[in-house]
């Protein structure tokens, strides 16, 4: 427990989190500063290449075991199931309609790759190890949630008379399964796996040594986005909705912890699976929702995921999830 508190404090005082806080404060004080959109996108691509490569190199060191495959399957199931639970809770505790509730639920079933990265650091700081295949789990957990949400949105309602005008067969599927983060994560994972430690040695200075620093810059921008979203969108959020953004991660974390315990996962891997489950998407899913459920309100789902759940997770959440992982794996 003491060690977990230490991790919590050193997490909170790490430059990464401090830059995130700086961004939030600047946004709330209505500073006009901004990171150009193109830079933010470029940094996001870099971060995904870097974690994909790292995961792939790790995986190339060990053969693919049943244990690993079970974790991949568990991730997919979690991403399918969490939105259903989220949807029920939202419909019971908030006044969101079916469409808004389904769209919001999709975000909580999917994942936040930056939260994952922050957790990877915290896990390392706690002296735990984690396997490269968790990156693959992250990629696999991105999309099943969207399928569940679309099913929930259409259930009970007379089937849509016809598709949105101008939509094209396969457009949503491409957006969802071939979005930038999946392409880059899975691609870089495969490349890391193929090229191995030796083959990637020449790109280590770029992808490994700079990683922490780039993350600072990226989180400064995330802080600005989260702060601005919150400042403009908080009026749209009722108290029960905000509450959902805070307790839902913990519920997802609990479920993932149970699975991790059943699968007998090592503590580090368990902590990451729990964090992935607890995290909510704010890049890939909002974009998919604009195509699939354009009637749902971004001011609700995006504000909640980026303005409430993301800050909660990177500050308070991650230490809790590590503690939980130590607990259920009997290493706490």
């Amino acid at each position, binding site marked *: 427990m003491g060690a977990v508190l230490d991790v919590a404090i050193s997490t909170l005082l790490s430059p990464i989190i401090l830059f995130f806080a700086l961004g939030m404060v600047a946004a709330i004080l209505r500073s006009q500063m901004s990171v150009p959109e193109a830079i933010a996108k470029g940094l996001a691509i870099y971060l995904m290449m870097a974690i994909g490569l790292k995961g792939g190199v790790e995986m190339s060191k060990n053969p693919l075991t049943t244990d690993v495959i079970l974790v991949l399957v568990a991730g997919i199931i979690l991403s399918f199931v969490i939105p259903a639970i989220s949807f029920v809770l939202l419909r019971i505790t908030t006044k969101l309609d079916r469409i808004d509730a389904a769209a919001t639920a999709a975000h909580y079933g999917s994942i936040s790759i930056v939260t994952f990265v922050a957790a990877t650091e915290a896990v390392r700081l706690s002296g735990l190890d984690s396997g490269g295949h968790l990156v693959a789990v992250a990629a696999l957990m991105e999309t099943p949630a969207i399928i569940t949400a679309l099913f929930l949105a259409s259930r009970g309602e007379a089937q849509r008379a016809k598709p949105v005008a*101008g939509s094209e067969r396969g457009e949503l599927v491409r957006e969802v399964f071939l979005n930038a983060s999946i392409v880059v994560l899975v691609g870089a994972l495969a490349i890391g796996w193929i090229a191995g430690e030796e083959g990637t040695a020449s790109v280590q200075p770029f992808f490994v040594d700079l990683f922490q620093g780039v993350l600072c810059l990226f989180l400064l921008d995330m802080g600005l*986005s989260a702060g601005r979203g919150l400042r*403009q969108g908080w009026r749209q959020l009722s108290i029960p909705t905000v509450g959902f953004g805070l307790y839902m991660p913990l519920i997802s974390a609990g479920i993932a912890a149970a699975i991790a315990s059943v699968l007998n996962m090592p503590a580090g891997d368990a902590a990451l699976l729990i964090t992935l489950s607890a995290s909510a998407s704010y*890049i890939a899913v909002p974009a998919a929702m*604009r195509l699939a459920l354009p009637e749902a309100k971004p001011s609700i789902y*995006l504000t909640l995921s980026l303005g409430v759940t993301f800050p909660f997770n990177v500050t308070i959440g991650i230490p809790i999830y590590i503690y939980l992982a130590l607990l259920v794996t009997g290493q706490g």
Partner: protein
Amino acid sequence: MTKYLRIELIIERMAHKRACRVLEAAGMTGYTVLPAMAGFGGSKRWSRDTDLSASGDMVVILSVGDEAKVRAVMAEIGDLLGAHIGIVTAAEVEVLRPGRF
């Protein structure tokens, strides 16, 4: 004499390909898409910098064509605007080299 109209769609970036397909289906010979950087509608402001997912961005689509085709677009595009956020305007314009439309 043929009348030429310039139709202008202000529409969500995520939906702009759908709108473009409607333009193409109606037989417009071309269009051009401009990125917007900020806007206001209803009671919300948006800006490219606010939203990391860029899912709230808008674009402006310009297309010039003869009256019949533009009217066809206006009849068709309403459906899309049932689902997506958008503004459509049209106005008569003089064109150079009318043959090309």
